[in-house]
């Protein structure tokens, strides 16, 4: 496995191991910290003992599901970013930039506004369909007897702008409260519960592991369409399947957290910087790093002006933009 990686990168198992440890520590920290200051033994009681009702409710029913949702959202968006950057062979691609988030957000918010009280389990499929719809639009716009990565990216930018404008229009004409609208457009995790965790988990488990397994095909695609065909790959079919995976991952994330920008763009770069361009390693690493990033960012979102909170998407944008610039400078 190492021979495919770039020479200076670290060994894959050690980096994956370190990233798993980082995720576990982030989750432990996020469950321990909150606007209510609980002592470590009360956090422990909340997790394993039902005797302390307040601690149980705070740790088990408020913090834990929210932290898990944050981790799953981060993993999904980062994996979607790896897939889309690989498929388009464009380092600027990502679920937000290519319009998948916009399509998912538009579908989700239309369902919520048109049919208030829709149970959460119907919002994720709607967002999935919206993301696929956006992908089809982007694909259709970019198709000229084949897909050029550059055209795909340009069509994506235009489609993203269109769907975000449409979502804003639906939100502006609805009677939703300004704060809820802001939280959706920027990406927020206020009051996420076990229902939300249950809603996104199947997508992460099924499509996420599918994406990790299929990540090897991205290595072949990276060689160029002609070489990939020469190696026996059905290029267009593979590309379409990977885009559908990305749509599922993006749609489920948007349904529970709104339109979080930057994560799907930045995290794949960070993963490649650490382990090189072998997608079989960088894909699972990106999932772990993305999960840790959102869990940590959500701690900041909950604590910085506690007991009030800010949308987590604002934290990821504030952290993500400078990190992205730094990555660009160190890589060139």
């Amino acid at each position, binding site marked *: 496995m190492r021979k495919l990686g770039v020479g200076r990168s670290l060994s894959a198992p050690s980096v994956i191991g370190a990233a798993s440890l980082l995720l576990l520590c982030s989750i432990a920290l996020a469950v321990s910290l909150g606007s209510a200051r609980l002592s470590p033994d009360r956090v422990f009681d909340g997790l394993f003992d039902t005797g302390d009702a307040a601690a149980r409710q705070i740790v088990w029913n*408020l913090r834990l599901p929210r932290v898990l949702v944050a981790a799953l959202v981060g993993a999904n968006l980062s994996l979607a970013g790896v897939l889309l950057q690989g498929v388009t062979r464009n380092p600027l691609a990502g679920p937000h930039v290519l319009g998948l988030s916009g399509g998912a957000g538009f579908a989700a918010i239309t369902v919520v506004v048109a049919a208030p009280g829709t149970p959460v389990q119907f919002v994720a499929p709607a967002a999935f369909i919206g993301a696929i719809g956006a992908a089809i639009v982007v694909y259709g716009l970019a198709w000229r007897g084949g897909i050029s990565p550059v055209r795909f990216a340009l069509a994506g930018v235009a489609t993203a702008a269109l769907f975000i404008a449409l979502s804003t229009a639906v939100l502006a004409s609805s009677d939703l409260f300004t704060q809820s609208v802001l939280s959706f457009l920027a990406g927020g995790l*206020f009051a996420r519960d076990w229902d939300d965790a249950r809603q996104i988990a199947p997508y992460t488990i099924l499509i996420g592991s599918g994406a990790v397994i299929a990540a090897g095909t991205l290595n072949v695609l990276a060689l160029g369409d002609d070489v990939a065909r020469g190696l026996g790959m059905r290029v267009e079919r593979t590309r379409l399947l990977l885009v559908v995976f990305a749509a599922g991952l993006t749609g489920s994330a948007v349904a529970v957290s709104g339109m979080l920008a930057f994560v799907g763009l930045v995290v794949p770069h960070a993963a490649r910087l650490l382990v090189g361009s072998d997608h079989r390693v960088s894909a699972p690493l990106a999932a772990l790093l993305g999960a840790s990033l959102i869990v940590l960012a959500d701690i900041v979102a909950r604590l910085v002006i506690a007991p*009030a909170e800010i949308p987590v998407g604002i934290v990821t944008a504030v952290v993500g933009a400078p990190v992205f610039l730094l990555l660009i400078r160190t890589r060139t």
Partner: protein
Amino acid sequence: MDNQRFIGLLAIGVGAVVMLAACKDSIAAPTETAAPAATEVHTTYPLTIRDLLGREVTIAAPPQRIITTSPSAIEMLYAAGGEAIARSETSVHPDGVASLPSIGPSYSPAFENILELGPDLVLADASAQGHLAKAFDYGLRGIPVIFIGAVEYEDIATSISLIGVIIDNQETADAAGAELAAVLEEVHSLSKGKTSPRVLIMNGAISDFFVALPDSFVGNLVTLAGGENVATNQPQTGRYPGYTQLSIEAIVETNPQVILTITAGPPSGSTLADLVLEDPTYANLAAVTDGRVHNLDVEIYLQAPGPRAAEGLRALAALLFGAE
């Protein structure tokens, strides 16, 4: 042997049913006898009550530790003679509540902090927090949450009276309700037989404002005070229930005689009323030439619909029909 055990169990079962029936009678009886007496009405617990969102909530015992999650809720609680142990971030009325611990802003209350304070009742806002009802029930599982609030003047008395029943302080609550009704009477007598002035209510900033319809809270107060809302037949547009967006041409066409404004933004800056008076666009409106452009208190008329609306209603009547 088995038969004996069976009969024994049967006897216990029958006994339990009889006892339950007896208990039920003894609970029901006092409320029936208490009603005609009417000298001092008391609440019997456990109390099951329907709140302003129509949710049925059971309260086991007289609440001792009450947390309010909006400015309206805390003002209504104090008007009913109750006290809170914590407040939402922007709750500063009545006097003294500003020093209570804050549980965060109304739009995203920190359920963790509420739970840590161990309340036995949470009073939430039906109009500002109704969309969070599911999150409240989930986040505060096991703690009774009652939604109260006001979209109309009469809702204030309804909410206060509901709190009065819940905290077993119905006399104070009824007195507060009577005061609200008395002010309404007084205002009616002031406008009686006079022509209603055409009123425009603007809310926001000079370049970005919404116009209040009669079914907004401030719109309801203006109607009760005897004003004729120029936006009466406009459809609701934009994201605020009870508000619409009117073009400047449409406003000029209605030529309001009185303009009332609620200013968005920090209280230190110029009010929307000042800006309307300076703006050449509005210079020819009757309200501007007559100098009848007034800024309204943002809390009383918008952010904290509650018992202070009585003084708000009085002030409106004075603005519309001249003081005394």
